[in-house]
């Protein structure tokens, strides 16, 4: 057998050496550890830039935003992490409420274009904005077929034609925001009516876009930027974004944000890294490559995307997004999960 013939002593010796080498890496003063709920493809180039500029080593662990938060919670005081970068404000709110984040300098928090992009406790900050939109199949529908407001998808004519991702964090953040905007009772009634329209559930945003393109469903509740990646690969992709008017519950912004971990051994360098992520050229990168909305004053969104200030920044406290549990309970109650 191939496996059994490997000299055992050599394998074990190799294992030990490898383990020791890896374990002894990191921990020095000139390195930062970042737990990222955002994908490697989206943020690694920006992080490489900042590591170069600040002359620190930045080690990044990629995973699901929720799982990275669970990781921080399990590690407690012994966490090796200096920074947490989350896909949505909800998880940052939870971490902030647990006392897991350090307050940020004012020179950092004053850079963003809207006070709602910073946590009330000043312990995390938005890095980029993501608009909630709907996508529609351009072969089946024209923009004028779409309802005036996001809440009107309860109309029975949309029965069986909606794709959504009820287990997805961005969607759940949206529902939490709706609860803040419309109140719990109205949100529950809206969700119940949507469920009666038999929406098709997907795991996350990308499969919704594929399903809308293939005609499996006609519209989908998604974040705005996924579409542009499909269009970059295939300009004939038969899907378009529709942005609702400012003030509509369908035009909400959620931010991807980051904060410095309380137990960070290198908090100053960590703040500098955040500052770097807000610098003009990195914001430019996020806008032009990932099609996200820049958060600092003066940085322009990509192409004809709306600016973050022209969309509904929830007027209520973004930290309310931390009440994920209430949202999950509500989704279970109405039969969405």
């Amino acid at each position, binding site marked *: 057998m191939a496996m059994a013939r490997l000299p055992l002593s050599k394998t074990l010796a190799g294992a030990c050496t490898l383990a020791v080498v890896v374990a002894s890496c990191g921990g020095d003063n000139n390195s930062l550890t970042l737990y990222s709920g955002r994908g490697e493809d989206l943020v690694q180039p920006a992080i490489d830039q900042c590591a170069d500029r600040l002359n620190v080593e930045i080690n990044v662990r990629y995973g699901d935003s*929720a799982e990275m938060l669970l990781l921080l919670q399990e590690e407690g005081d012994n966490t090796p992490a200096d920074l947490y970068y989350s896909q949505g404000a909800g998880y940052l709110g939870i971490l902030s409420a647990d006392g897991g984040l350090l307050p940020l300098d004012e020179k950092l928090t004053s850079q963003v274009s809207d006070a709602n992009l910073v946590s009330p406790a000043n312990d995390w900050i938005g890095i980029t904005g993501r608009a909630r939109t709907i996508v529609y199949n351009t072969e089946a529908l024209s923009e004028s077929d779409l309802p005036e407001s996001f809440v009107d998808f309860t109309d029975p004519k949309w029965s069986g034609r909606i794709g959504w991702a009820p287990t997805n964090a961005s969607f759940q953040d949206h529902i939490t925001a709706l609860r803040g905007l419309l109140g719990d009772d109205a949100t529950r009634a809206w969700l119940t009516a949507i469920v009666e329209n038999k929406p098709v559930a997907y795991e996350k945003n990308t499969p919704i876009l594929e399903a809308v393109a293939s005609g499996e469903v006609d519209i989908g509740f998604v974040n705005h930027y996924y579409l542009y990646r499909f269009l970059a*690969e295939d300009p004939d992709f038969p899907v378009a974004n529709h942005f609702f008017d400012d003030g509509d519950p369908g035009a909400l912004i959620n931010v991807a944000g980051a904060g410095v971990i309380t137990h960070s051994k290198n908090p100053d360098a960590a703040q500098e890294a955040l500052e770097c992520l807000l610098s003009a050229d990195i914001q430019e990168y996020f806008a032009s490559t990932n099609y996200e909305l820049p958060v600092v004053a003066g940085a322009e969104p990509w192409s004809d995307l709306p600016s973050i200030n022209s969309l509904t920044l929830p007027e209520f406290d973004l930290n309310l997004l931390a009440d994920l549990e209430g949202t999950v309970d509500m989704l279970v109650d109405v039969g969405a999960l």
Partner: protein
Amino acid sequence: MTPRQPSDDRALRIVALAVGVAAALPIGYLVWRTCEYGFSASVDVATSGRTLGLLWSTLKLAVAVTASSVVIAVPIAWLTVRTNLPGRQVWSIVTVLPLAIPTYVGSWAFIGALGPRGMFANLLGIESIPSIYGFWGAWASLTLFSYPYVLLTVRSAWMRLDPGLEEASRMLGRSSWHTFLKVVWPQLRPAVSSGALLVSLYSLSDFGAVAMMRYDTFTREIYLQYRGALERGASAVLGLMLVVLTVTVLTGEQRLRRREDLHRLHGSGARTPQPVELGRLRVPALAGLGLLTALALAVPLGVISYWLVRGVRAGEPVWPAWSLISNSLSVSLLAAAVATIAALPVAMIIRRSPGRFANVIERLSWSGYALPGIVVALALVYFGANAVPWAYQSVAMLVFAYSILFLPQAIGAVRSSLLQVTPSLEEASLLLGAQRTTTFRKVLLPLLRPGLGAGAGLVFLTTMKELPATLLLAPTGFSTLATRIWNSTSEGFLGRSAGPALALVLLSSVPMAILLTRSQRQGARRIGAAGRDQPAENAKQDVPSEVRLTR
């Protein structure tokens, strides 16, 4: 009875116990989290209508997947071991290869190809085909990517069967079907049940297929609780329910096995049997194998290639970075080695002193097998960060996690090959004055090679595909092929994930093909060499005396 010194036995027991306790670490964590969550809250979660509903849908899926895996695997084992099927050697490798395809890749490919508006529907110009989402989709993808667990165990058992018994049955006038039912099947049953055990527990723990196919199971609910509500208490309760389920299934299998130990040992392959002439059956047999291969291999590989071409056109490299490959290969090889070594004392205890202690150790080692990877990973995060911070986020810790997760696969393989070794060989060696260690090294170990190789091979394959524990426990910045695929698909870069996906499948297939070819050749050699010197009556002496005593 194998002569043994008490001290020697005690050392073995202590090592086996240590392995069992290490494997049960996640259970300890779950118990602790459940206690913290509170008794009444835990009872509420465990007895809620939703949980009971999930229990039913989970069991339904596990039973259906296990049954269909057996139904697929047994005929294939027969075709590739006992008949003159054209291309037998090739088929015997090809039919095991679906094991190299992760369910999260396979299910995604199914949806792309066979979904309501997938490539298949487009090709035929059909407006809509029956939905593959839900139970049927989850069932089909779990079955197609895990039936090889049963196939592997059944095939190796079948290769060892003494054809003399079947011939006797036929000469005594029984039909071939009757002979199969009364003579062959009872001898295969332990192998079927140990393969079925792996499949059923695997389908309890799998997240990839049920998430893609949107079918609610315990595992999906645990993820939902963790990700949506960050709820560790309720997840722990659900996890413990999975552990109880695992131990129940395992106890059933242990009972079954005890009753059947004698059959398993019958004959160590007297000679090569005359292959069965398939005749007119050849066409349906080939058609069936072709259909299976199309679904379980061609569809996933086809969809991956489709995205690969699109990715390459957009400027992605075909072959992923070397570091991803070497990371995947090195941790998988290490996990295979460690898990196999850890499995040895457990398997030896089960064989040498079957009884309550051995049963407890075996249950401990298996207890976490049905747990979703994220549960085991978080348990080890807690343990690692707080108890052994110096080893936390090291490759050693990651390999430890893999070994715990996949230990049962190695135990199963090592145990079945241990049971084939006649204790009289060890006795002879000891009587001739050899040391115990020498006896182990020179007599037992060479005979165990096929089992150790098979166990290590299974652990290697499963580790290559593993995702949740890798994401949480690997050293920061340590990427593997699996995490690379996850990273790109989760953000919608499908073209970018195709290269790593193809590399993962190919790199897993090659060692498996080598392993299978060797074991076939070895099997053929052994059968050929045993020849006439070993009359069927002698088979009785192959039964370890301990087993006879327990009966």
